[in-house]
């Protein structure tokens, strides 16, 4: 077939951050296929040097507005690991709740506002205000509800206030727990039509086997906040060995650093987690997964959006469970942490290194800090889910383009955009770090 296709999407829309898609087919042969990251570098790892470990959360939360709570939790975990602080059970439980809210909030934003417009054939949610008013209202209502729960728990969702190294500066009162439960139960009502919408969406047909990477554990809990690193190819290792999984490497003829584990590339995110830990999902989530035919191992990356829907149900139900337990057992307010000058010596500090590995909306996120004996940061490293996915996205594009050459250029462009969007890339995050391709902006 002698066909020429040139796709050049500058500033891909409805994603977080700035990325370009470049596809070039000449005489039916794929010559070029790239996802370029064109975000301005921000140098977070460099800026952290010389800062107190107690400031790391506040600063790294600002890496990303969408996953600010995820960065917060990974940062705190790495910081506590570095200084040898062990959080209480209550603190861990509240952090799990915060992580659920983060995943729920982000997935709803992605499913409704970023992906659904493509599948409904429009450019954004704005035209849907007229054609699907109830859907738009439901989306905005659910998004706000997640935010409102975060407001109660940590002050706000974008750059949470009360979650810090050591625990929480403010613990939810009895009435706060009731408020959070009430809001989450209102989301339950909206979840039913959300599932219906999700089940009705037609995702493009495409399969490519790859390795799926995420947290794993030996308990019945769906691992999000802690665990070992595992993969569908059978890798398993302690979180401190994360660099053996991410294996940043340089691509010939490019300044890019990509990641690979057992194969050429791997995928992280909701689909990877569902593929790895399907049996540990909440029964309600599993039931819906069965109904829409999502089962491990699903190898269609477009279905990452469907996996996010399944995780929404899981996170919502588990959040309600956690809050009901707090309602029954009460909260120990003596565990509130006072922020301040080295936390007024409340938390002892020693020199060391620590790693945080947390499943945030887009996949496994790593923070690593090294501190001196005063708790000042000497070195910092962050590896972001989207950075890990970049290589896999390009491999998908390379397989998908030849399969769809019978379509016209606009259709191919849209399909490429949809593929990248399915990964829910957070380019704003990933571009601050080494492991992504960069071209001059």
């Amino acid at each position: 077939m002698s066909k020429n296709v040139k796709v050049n999407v500058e500033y891909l829309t409805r994603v977080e951050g700035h990325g370009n898609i470049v596809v070039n087919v000449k005489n039916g042969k794929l010559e070029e296929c790239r996802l370029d990251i064109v975000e301005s570098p921000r140098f977070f790892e460099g800026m952290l040097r010389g800062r107190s470990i107690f400031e790391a959360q506040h600063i790294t939360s600002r890496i990303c507005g969408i996953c600010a709570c995820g960065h917060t939790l990974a940062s705190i975990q790495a910081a506590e690991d570095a200084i040898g602080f062990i959080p209480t059970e209550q603190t861990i439980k509240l952090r799990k709740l915060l992580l659920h809210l983060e995943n729920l909030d982000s997935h709803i934003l992605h499913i409704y506002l970023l992906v659904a417009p493509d599948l409904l054939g429009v450019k954004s949610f704005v035209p849907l205000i007229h054609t699907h008013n109830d859907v738009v209202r439901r989306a905005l209502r659910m998004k706000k509800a997640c935010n409102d729960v975060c407001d109660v728990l940590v002050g706000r969702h974008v750059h949470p206030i009360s979650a810090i190294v050591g625990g929480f500066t403010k613990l939810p009162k009895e009435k706060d727990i009731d408020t959070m439960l009430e809001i989450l139960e209102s989301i339950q009502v909206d979840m039913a039509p959300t599932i219906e919408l999700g089940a009705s969406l037609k995702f493009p047909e495409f399969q490519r086997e790859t390795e799926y990477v995420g947290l794993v554990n030996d308990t019945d809990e769906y691992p999000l906040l802690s665990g070992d690193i595992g993969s569908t190819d059978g890798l398993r290792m302690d979180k401190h060995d994360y660099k053996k999984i991410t294996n940043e490497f340089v691509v010939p003829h490019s300044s890019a650093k990509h990641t690979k584990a057992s194969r050429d590339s791997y995928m992280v995110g909701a689909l990877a987690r569902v593929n790895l830990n399907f049996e540990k999902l909440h029964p309600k989530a599993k039931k819906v997964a069965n109904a829409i035919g999502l089962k491990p191992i699903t190898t269609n990356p477009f279905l990452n959006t469907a996996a996010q829907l399944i995780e929404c149900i899981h996170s919502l139900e588990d959040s309600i469970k956690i809050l009901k337990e707090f309602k029954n057992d009460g909260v120990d307010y003596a565990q509130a942490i006072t922020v301040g000058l080295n936390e007024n010596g409340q938390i002892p500090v020693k020199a060391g290194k620590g790693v945080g590995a947390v499943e945030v909306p887009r996949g496994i996120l790593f923070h690593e800090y090294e501190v001196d004996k005063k708790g000042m940061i000497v070195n910092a490293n962050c590896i972001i889910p989207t950075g890990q996915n970049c290589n896999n996205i390009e491999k998908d594009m390379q397989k998908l383009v030849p399969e769809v050459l019978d379509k016209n250029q606009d259709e191919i462009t849209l399909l490429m955009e949809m593929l990248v969007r399915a990964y829910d890339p957070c380019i704003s995050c990933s571009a601050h770090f080494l492991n992504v391709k960069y071209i001059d902006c």
Partner: protein
Amino acid sequence: MKKVKVAFFDFTCCEGCQLQVANMGEALLDVLDLIDVVEFREVMSEKSSTYDVAIVEGSITTPHGVERIKKIRKTAKVLIAYGSCAAIGGINGMKNNFDLKDIREYVYQKDAKHFDTIPTRAVHQVVPVDYTVTGCPVYIPEFVKVLKAALMGIAYNVPDNAVCVECKLNENECMYDKGIACMGPITRAGCNSWCINNGNICYGCRGIVSNPAEKGQKDILEKYNISLEWIENKINMYNKPRELGELKTDE
């Protein structure tokens, strides 16, 4: 009434302030009754070459960013600097605490040459700005106030009194009385003392008041035995770019 065309643009930032708009919930639909959002890359694929109001998020940190903000300024009748990164340089300004060559090489090693960067500046240090919404992230009630002012063509001034004023009204126990230093006394109010209400300190994200009563502050520092270095360190978290002047064309 013809709707005002509004476009959102992002520069170097986390895009969290744009997200605050999506977090308004169904109230967003009331706002959309008044304005016509013609470009908002984070949530829309539509693009437009004309607009009346440009809402700009992020700080200016690359040569490309300088050119882009100049173009936007030419097109827009009204330009709103949205969020601390745009308003005061914000957290990106921490980069200015380091030698730029050194920090580039620390993060990107031998690939550093690909990462063009200039000292972080607020938008008003590069082009004239008509309205400012500060805060990391922005406080939505304040954004709505500014948007109303912009649509009506009346002035909005960021409060120039200290966060302490709001903090007192919220009946929080003073951090200094608890033996903890806080940026509240020198930081611009308007956030309803958001962080202190939630048990944390003020980090100065809204910018420094124009008259920080330095002598009085020194008395406070002495009284509570807090070093000037601590305060400077915290100021440099969000407010470092204020040391720079306006961007010169040859920079």
